[in-house]
């Protein structure tokens, strides 16, 4: 997982990597939470460019992080999703609260 923080913009970018399922998402959630607590960002971008598989565990993981971000008044967006991941995320309606980033933000 690639985590970068832009202090000027208070922008935290989380680049997920590999497969997101029930087995892997606990550790991922913990690392994202640690970064959120460390930086207290105003915006978070979740990047899926390097994710090869995701099931509904990923939806739960994103929703859990979204709740934490709400508490510190931060917003989040999603970027670089494949068709497969868009299909799953679209079904859950999560784009209403964590929208798709229209222009891809380059980081790292």
């Amino acid at each position, binding site marked *: 997982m690639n985590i970068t923080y832009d202090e000027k913009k208070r922008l935290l970018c989380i680049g997920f990597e590999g497969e997101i399922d029930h*087995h892997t998402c606990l550790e991922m959630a913990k690392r994202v939470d640690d970064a959120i607590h460390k930086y207290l960002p105003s915006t978070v971008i979740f990047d899926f460019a390097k994710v090869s598989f995701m099931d509904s565990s990923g939806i739960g993981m994103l*929703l859990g992080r979204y709740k934490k971000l709400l508490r510190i008044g931060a917003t989040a967006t999603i970027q670089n999703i494949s068709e*497969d991941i868009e299909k*799953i995320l679209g079904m*859950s309606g999560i784009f209403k609260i964590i929208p798709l980033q229209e222009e891809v933000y380059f980081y790292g």
Partner: protein
Amino acid sequence: MDNEMKLEIKSKSCNEAFARIAVAAFVSQLDPTLEEIADVKTAVSEAVTNSIIHGYENQDGFIHIHCILSGRDIEIEVIDYGKGIENVEMAKQPLFTSCPNSDRSGMGFTIMENFMDEMKVESILGMGTKVLMKKTLKEG
């Protein structure tokens, strides 16, 4: 093509990836599209994860996966001998979760239903749960 396989795995979360990849590899002899393979992988992942988290509540148990290929039809059964589901209709509702305080989305059955052509859940409290999923692949 007619073919069949049975797989028995321990209810460990690291076996979720193994189960979906094994089923995808077996199904791949029908030369499915990438989207069809992704659908099958995701549906199997959901069913196996349910068995581990809800059926066995993260305790030790065995999960049986039975896969039958007949022509372009795929039939996949995922069976556990865990605690069973009290109200199957309620469990199938989108966003329903029996673990509201964990990061579970409650989308598992909805995804299985949408990614496969057919899904049926049979469950007996204290005995276990069987999820039967069917999908017909496009003509190759």
